[in-house]
């Protein structure tokens, strides 16, 4: 279990200071796969490095299995090499002057918990077999492909049987196809080890497919935490709605009190919409988030359905669907339609959307 409380870290450079992590708190339960997701520069890596002990937080406390490893109040500091944490770096950090075997054996041979010679062989072999590199044990490390290096880095992190595993964008250096394969394999591996894991990524698809819990970060803060379905279906604010999947964001004003089933009416530039308000933003100026795939050409007949009438401005065929732009009043909507059912560009279209798919939320993060 990892507990992080009120973590803050400021970077100082000659000319400026930068608050990279701003009062971040979260808990990762035993065996959980926890993902920090956010745009570049939002402080994910810094948070992860604080947990690892490679950065020293200015404020806050970090506990692993209940024992503080870093605490600004109690003045506790356990150096990173004594935290028993496995880590996979973005660059993989495979030592180029060693063989595959030596790379994995390194933590066992020289680490805090030294292991005797015979056991080293066995454990390294086991770890390599786990990531299907057993047959490459004697290969020089630089002679591995990207995917193999990535698995080697995993094996090296696993071999110490750490309490905690930290992964910093481990898939970002792989090409698209390999990344997809490794995504599934990674989750499988980590889950079979049962190790508590923090995973850092800026790819929403990785976060959604791999995680038990996702924390979305922005400007050094966690703006929403929840399971993947939650995060996708009930984004707490416009930032999350747009960052996780694509959304059409439309400003509006709430004009009614919520009905029995939580529906409010929102006035937008071109008319009024029935919206659901999952995060309780039920008054004043708000944003309405509408996912492109929820806008349909045919009415479903439900009671709270909205209709938007506009002109099809552009359509781009991308295989399993067509990405379209529909102009409603002055507002352009991204819409995803089935290729067979896409009207010709320039024609008038009616788009239907259920109220539960129109999400009213606070505009600010």
């Amino acid at each position, binding site marked *: 279990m990892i507990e992080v409380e009120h973590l803050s870290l400021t970077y100082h450079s*000659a000319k400026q*200071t930068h608050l990279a992590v*701003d009062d971040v708190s979260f808990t990762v339960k035993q065996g959980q796969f926890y993902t920090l997701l956010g745009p570049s520069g939002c402080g994910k890596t810094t948070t992860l490095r604080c947990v690892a002990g490679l950065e020293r937080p200015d404020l806050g406390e970090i506990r692993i299995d209940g024992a503080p490893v870093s605490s*600004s109040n109690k003045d506790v500091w356990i150096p990173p090499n004594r935290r028993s944490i496995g880590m996979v770096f973005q660059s993989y*950090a495979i030592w*180029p002057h060693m063989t595959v075997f030596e790379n994995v054996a390194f933590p066992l041979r*020289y680490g805090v918990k030294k292991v005797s010679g015979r056991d080293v062989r066995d454990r390294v072999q086991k770890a390599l077999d786990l990531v299907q590199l057993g047959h490459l044990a004697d290969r020089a490390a630089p002679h591995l492909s990207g995917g193999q290096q990535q698995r080697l880095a995993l094996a090296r992190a696993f071999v*110490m049987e750490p309490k905690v595993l930290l992964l910093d964008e481990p898939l970002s250096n792989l090409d698209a196809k390999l990344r997809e394969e490794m995504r599934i394999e990674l989750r499988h591996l980590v889950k079979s080890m049962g190790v508590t894991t923090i995973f850092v990524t800026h790819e929403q698809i990785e976060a959604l497919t791999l995680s038990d819990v996702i924390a979305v970060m922005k400007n050094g803060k966690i703006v929403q935490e929840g399971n993947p379905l939650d995060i996708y279906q009930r984004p707490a604010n416009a930032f999350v709605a747009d960052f996780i999947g694509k959304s059409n964001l439309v400003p509006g004003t709430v004009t009614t009190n919520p009905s029995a089933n939580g529906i409010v009416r929102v006035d937008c530039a071109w008319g009024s919409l029935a919206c659901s308000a999952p995060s309780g933003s039920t008054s004043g100026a708000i944003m309405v988030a509408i996912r492109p795939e929820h806008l349909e050409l045919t009415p479903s007949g439900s009671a709270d359905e909205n209709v938007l009438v506009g002109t099809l401005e552009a359509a781009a065929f991308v295989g399993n669907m067509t990405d379209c732009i529909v102009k409603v009043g002055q507002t352009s909507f991204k819409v995803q339609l089935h290729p067979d059912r896409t009207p010709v560009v320039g024609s008038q279209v009616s788009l239907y959307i259920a109220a539960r798919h129109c999400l009213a939320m606070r505009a600010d993060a």
Partner: protein
Amino acid sequence: MTDGPVNRDGLVLRPQGGGAAIQPTAWAKPGRISWRFIMPKEDPWAIVMVCVVGLFSLFILSIPVIIIILSFREGRPIDPVSAYSFMHYASVFTDPVAYRALINTITFSLVTLLVAFVFGLPAAWLVERTDLPAKPLLYTLMTLGILLPGFATAMGWLFMLHPRIGLVNVFFMRVVGFAEAPFNIATIVGMGWVQGLSLAPIAFIMTAAVLRAIDPALEESAQMSGANFFNIIRKVTLRLAWPGILAAGIYILTIGFAAFDVPGIIGMSNRIFTFSTYLLTQLAPHDDLPHYGKAAALSTVVMAASGLLALWYGRLQSQAYRYQVVTGKGYRPRILGLGRYVWLAWLFLGVYFLLSKFLPLLIVVWASALPYFQLPSENAFKSMSWSNFENIPWDMTLLGLRNTAILMVLVPTITLACAVAFSWVVLRSKVPGRLAFDFVAFLPHAIPNIVFGVGILLVALFLLRNVIPFYGTLWILLFVFVIGRISYATRMTNSTLIQVHKELEEAATMSGVGTGTIIRRVLLPILAPTMIYAWIWMALLTFRELTLAVILTTKDNLTLPVVVWSMWSSGDYGAASAITLLLICLMVPLTAFYWWAVRKTGIQTT
């Protein structure tokens, strides 16, 4: 010795003003810096390295400070109390010989610069911008050219152009019938010529690096807009390369300031002094007590001058890199076909190597084979013998050889160990104010080595006399040689450490190991190629180092070049030539090893 990346990193790493100034901000009070984070006590190696770097830096810093203090102190340095005044400065600027020496130094440095550029710049251009064949060979010859001891070529030139015995002069007077000698090498211009020839490789290496960094597209676009060849060179190439070339010039000027070999061999016996040789006469006068105060004042003046030059150099370097439109990857420089004129290029380079290396060496060989120096003639050939070699004072020479060998092994080793510690502290540790250490490591590069020699002499004689009596031992040489090389070594280790991804070490930390193991098992193996290269290079430079040794040697801690020096100063030119040849022969296997290491590790000297 310097080269491209070294300078570049010197720039990158030099503290950029207030790097350590941490401002607490209102919204996040930084926790106080805990030493347990910077140097966990379970991590003895980190502590050792920080201590080594700290102590070493203190030593380096203390040397200029002591020189400055002594330069103001009246009376002898041992006097317990003494007044402070500008007395020694007054004596420097009123003593006509001292004043003359300062003026000489400036003229000498300027001539040196001119000669070095006349040969170095065109050679660099030929290598980087034309289709001259056999470029790697030229690079190798130039690099090895730096290694040839300056005193050897100085001897050769003196034998050639000495007003009385110089071969060329004698030839003109006896055979052609001139009334007096047409050439005289024993002048400031003559010495500048010899020094410039031996520094041309540095001008070559530095400007070649600058030229290589200029995007040829800039020259091509000039060509597309209709400029002709000379206009492109003048208006584009030279313009863009200018800050870099100027920086190379300043660097050579600084070397010229403190050069000892050439003024020592050629000038001293003819009573023409430059800064370094005059300094020596003040420290070890024949007929008087040493003038330590005056030497300190003189050193301070030169320190100030070279400090200013170094500042300028630093600024130019940053300009050079701002200018630079480097793409790094995938461009081919615009190559000029030499066509029929390739012979001209070869002629030019041939003349350079002939003048700077082969002729002087040949004449030293000639001199070593003769009982006394004379023109080639039937008689001369008859009198050739091994007698100079047989008459070498072997006890002295063997002692020198032993000492030199010890230094040659220890100096590079210790310097590199310190350099790794410096680089690690500056680039990898979290010690507050670590950038200051990089500045300290850069100091011996900015201040002439000979000044450090003087400083350590003063420290050893007066400060540590009763504490650590190491004046006259090999250790004092070891110490000053290490200081003299630390800038070069840290530049080398810095530039490689920068290229080593930090995560390689962090991965080791996360594997549960401490700093000691990281350095041993991860860093050193990765740095090994550079370290081997730098080790051999420093060993070679140590082997031929005369300047620093001359100031600090006594009869017990002689090195081989000092043996040559003392033979020469006592007028035994035959023996001096013989030992010089011996020394050069001993360098050959090491140089071969160096060459092998360069090829193996693929490190370019530029």
